[in-house]
């Protein structure tokens, strides 16, 4: 039952639809028409079913082809945990928030290892940029994550955070919640590799970064993993700051509205900013963004 909803199939379909929203909004912002809604499905089906999968000479096959699968598996697991917790908050286990944090680090790690194992200089460059990016955004990400934990009475269970918000109101309604939400949004922008933090796959500089040697099925699975993460990211934000996705008839429309607003906000940030250099990104995340996260934590401890 978990395979179909809310497992792999559901996450993949939703992720590809969200990917279409991304492409369509981007096209509309650039005054274009944009692709039809099934475009991402066709792209992935083409890569998985009909294209040749090439493995570069002298490359560890297990490493090169295993990493996309690892990436997709952990992305699916994140999406599944977060969807199950949202539909029935009592189901989760102790510390599932921490599990989600760890699972969110695995896709960039898999991308890095895949890039390094492909023995392409541009892929190595992309992977090393990705590594620096992970190092820079993880610090403010975890600090911002502490705020919902403090606000919900030191609960590290996603279900408890949702239930607590149902009692005392959403975390976003408090000053510390707003600040930590902004920090979290910027960190997810970097986690998903959206502009301004897409230097790991900067198409105009290093072609496709760590993806450069991937083709066919392996590339298709990577695309699927990225789509699933793009779907899961706003759901995580809604769970932590907006009191979770409500599945009853009156709450669902507002949850959907929140989801679309967060998604479109990310896409608009993506389309209105230039790519920053990797040192600028590190300075940005370790400087102002971490400072904001510290302020948010202090405010949360003071009960604001």
């Amino acid at each position, binding site marked *: 039952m978990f395979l179909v909803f809310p497992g792999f199939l559901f996450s993949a379909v939703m992720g590809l639809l969200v990917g279409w929203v991304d492409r369509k909004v981007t096209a509309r912002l650039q*005054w274009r028409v944009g692709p039809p809604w099934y475009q991402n499905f066709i792209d992935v089906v083409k890569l998985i079913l009909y294209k*040749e999968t090439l493995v570069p000479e002298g490359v560890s096959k297990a490493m090169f082809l295993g990493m996309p699968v690892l990436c997709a598996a952990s992305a699916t697991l994140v999406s599944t945990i977060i969807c199950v917790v949202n539909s029935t908050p009592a189901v989760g286990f102790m510390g599932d928030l921490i599990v989600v944090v760890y699972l969110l680090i695995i896709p960039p790690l898999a991308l890095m290892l895949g890039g390094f194992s492909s023995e392409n200089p541009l892929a190595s460059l992309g992977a090393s940029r990705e590594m620096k990016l992970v190092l820079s955004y993880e610090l403010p990400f975890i600090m911002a994550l502490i705020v919902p934990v403090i606000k919900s009475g030191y609960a590290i269970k996603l279900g408890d955070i949702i239930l607590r918000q149902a009692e005392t109101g959403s975390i976003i309604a408090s000053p510390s919640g707003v600040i930590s939400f902004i920090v979290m949004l910027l960190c997810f922008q970097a986690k998903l590799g959206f502009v301004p933090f897409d230097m790991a796959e900067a198409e105009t500089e290093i072609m496709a970064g760590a993806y450069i040697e991937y083709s066919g099925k392996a590339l298709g699975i990577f695309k699927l993993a990225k789509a699933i993460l793009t779907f899961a990211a706003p759901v995580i934000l809604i769970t932590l700051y907006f009191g979770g996705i409500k599945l009853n008839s009156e709450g669902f429309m507002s949850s959907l509205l929140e989801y679309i607003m967060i998604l479109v906000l990310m896409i608009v940030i993506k389309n209105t900013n230039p790519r920053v250099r990797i040192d600028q990104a590190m300075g940005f995340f370790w400087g102002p963004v971490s400072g904001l996260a510290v302020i948010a934590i202090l405010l949360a401890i003071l009960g604001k």
Partner: protein
Amino acid sequence: MGFREKILTKSIYAFHVSSGSCNNCDIEILDCLTPRFDLERFGIILAGSVKHADVLFCTGSANRLCVPRIKKLYEMMPKPGFVVAWGACGSSRGLFKDSYNTTVPLDEVIPVDLYIPGCPPKPEAVIGGMVKLIEKINQTRK
């Protein structure tokens, strides 16, 4: 037209090979992706890496230095892949026909599926060419 052809024709990732062109054709490739013509409507976008590509857009006259590289790129493209010779130079070497530097035309180096003439080809000609490429892909049905 079966399912395979439908999928292959609706999602064309193009890789741009410039083999000694004067840049006019290269600018026309970008023109096709801009708001007025917007080839992404049909699922045609530029790929960053040749391993992601379905179609090679070969501009330029394929000079001697570029020939081995074009061959290598063609071999690196995952199959099924197609080649479009772009502009007068790509199709027939254009005004460099008698040059010491361009001894063979592009279609004697790699198999070319489609020629888009013009110096440079207008975006309308490119879209017409893409329609013919889609017909050609439809004929590859096994």
